[in-house]
């Protein structure tokens, strides 16, 4: 049994390790390591298309995760005050946002936005006093909106679980001592749910940073890092892609490990 378990762990990590190893390969071949070199990293980082795709990804991931953290937390706090029927509706919609395949979310968002734009743009053009009316189109906004949907559901789910495990008595004690609801929230509730909010933010960031399929549909002419990597892979496998892949891996690893530490803290505290 132990041999089987070890081989599964090997199976999980060996391919990633190989990608990382060969990102430092001087030669181009995937089957022989011909010498250590960081040339592929230098080549990747001097590629302006890549750098601008990375910038786009960071902007989109940060914005969608921040919006999701704020609105998702608000929803989690508000939902427990709703009637059970409304709460079930929210639960169902959030579940749908998570379970519906990304490819469908991408398509649905694309057709809806294009339909809206085809109606709104002529209207703006007709009403605009100047010569060059602004045109709405796909880009940052549409990717942030579509990523924000999944991320908000994710944050709401995580924060809701945390709120459910909070002790009611301490909140009641706070209001018995004449704290206003806002003070109680700031001093009692927020500090306890903050790690979960941060973990949700980091997971949302990771999701957005790594998502390919939703962005592929709604990005318009914008390129995100996964879209760039996908396009490069189709042009041919090169060690430069290994270098980019390694950088992406390191970024996601840092994010997910931080999120896990934050969630762990929450669990050990609630275990007291």
């Amino acid at each position, binding site marked *: 049994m132990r041999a*089987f378990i070890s081989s599964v762990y090997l199976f999980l990590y060996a391919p990633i390790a190989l990608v990382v190893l060969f990102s430092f390969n001087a030669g181009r071949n995937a*089957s022989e390591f011909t010498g250590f070199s960081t040339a592929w990293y230098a080549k990747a980082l001097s590629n302006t298309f890549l750098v601008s795709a990375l910038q786009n990804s960071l902007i989109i991931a940060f914005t969608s995760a921040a919006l999701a953290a704020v609105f998702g937390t608000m929803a989690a706090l508000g939902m427990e005050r709703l009637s059970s029927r409304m709460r079930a509706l929210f639960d169902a919609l959030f579940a749908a946002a998570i379970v519906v395949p990304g*490819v469908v979310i991408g398509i649905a968002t694309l057709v*809806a936005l294009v339909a809206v734009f085809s109606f709104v743009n002529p209207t703006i053009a007709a009403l605009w006093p100047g010569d060059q009316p602004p045109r709405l189109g796909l880009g940052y906004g549409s990717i942030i909106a579509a990523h924000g949907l999944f991320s908000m559901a994710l944050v709401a789910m995580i924060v809701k679980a945390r709120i459910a495990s909070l002790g009611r008595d301490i909140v009641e004690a706070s209001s018995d001592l004449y704290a206003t609801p806002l003070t109680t929230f700031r001093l009692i509730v927020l500090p306890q749910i903050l790690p979960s909010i941060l973990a949700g933010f980091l997971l949302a960031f990771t999701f957005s940073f790594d998502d390919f399929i939703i962005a592929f*549909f709604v990005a318009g002419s914008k390129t995100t890092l*996964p879209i760039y990597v996908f396009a490069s892979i189709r042009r041919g496998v090169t060690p430069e892609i290994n270098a980019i*892949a390694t950088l992406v891996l390191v970024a996601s690893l840092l994010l997910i490990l931080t999120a896990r530490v934050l969630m762990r803290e929450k669990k050990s505290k609630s275990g007291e």
Partner: protein
Amino acid sequence: MRAAMNTKRNLVTAALVAPAAAWLTVFLVLPFIAMLVFAFGERAPEGGYQVAFTFAQFANLPTRAAAFWNTLLLAPTGALLCLIVAYPVAYYLAVKANPRYRLILVSLVVVPFWTSLLVRTYAWMYILGSRGIPNLLSMIGIEDVRMLNTPGAVLLGIVYGYLPLMIMPIYVSLERLDRRLLEASADLGAKPVSTFFGVTLPLSLPGVMTGVALVTILLLGEYLIPQLLGGGKVFFIGNALVDLFLQSRNWPFGSAIAVTLVAVVVVVLMVAMRIAWRVAGTRQVDLV
């Protein structure tokens, strides 16, 4: 006074849920309605959508039967392969592993799930591609082995990509298992094997169901793995959708396929929940 407080409370509640409600309406509910409307429309001559009410798109579904068959065959097969590999791992982590290392071992399973699927699938493209294993094989005289762009490569990618998601729910259901039941079974003279099949396995079925349902549902919408490891020869519904939307720009037909895909997902979900209810109460799963 009381009424005023109630009104204020309701206002605060409304303000709290309003942004999420707006987001869900504009970017989930409306897009679904739009997709449904498109599915009953016609393709404009230059591509895109033209207003109409026709069932032609749905009648046309059989032309993409291959994508549906591949998906409906390979998604459950992939999920079952995942299960076969995942169960022993989950069992080991929950029951056999040294508690001191358990947390680290569990982390090592979860972490890959949250790293880029694109990068992890690319890794196998690299390994199975002509410069990888086939190149090594040709060095020892075995020529012309093709590994990439086969159903086997797609299944390998599926197991690789979704193994963590299968291990976690099974691990959770096994970890919550009451150890005294196992002791009781042993005290009553059951051999370890019959304890496993009589006690452990039935009690972990909710986790197994959750894992199989979750992985199957996500696989139904998979695009990257068949695209990169199947190379256009083994294609899923997701690949047909990308082709219809971004290449041939037949949006109404694409919408009809997407609507059908959602229907399949809902059916799978309902069957899974039915079985889960019958097997035992549902349990919450930590994916993080």
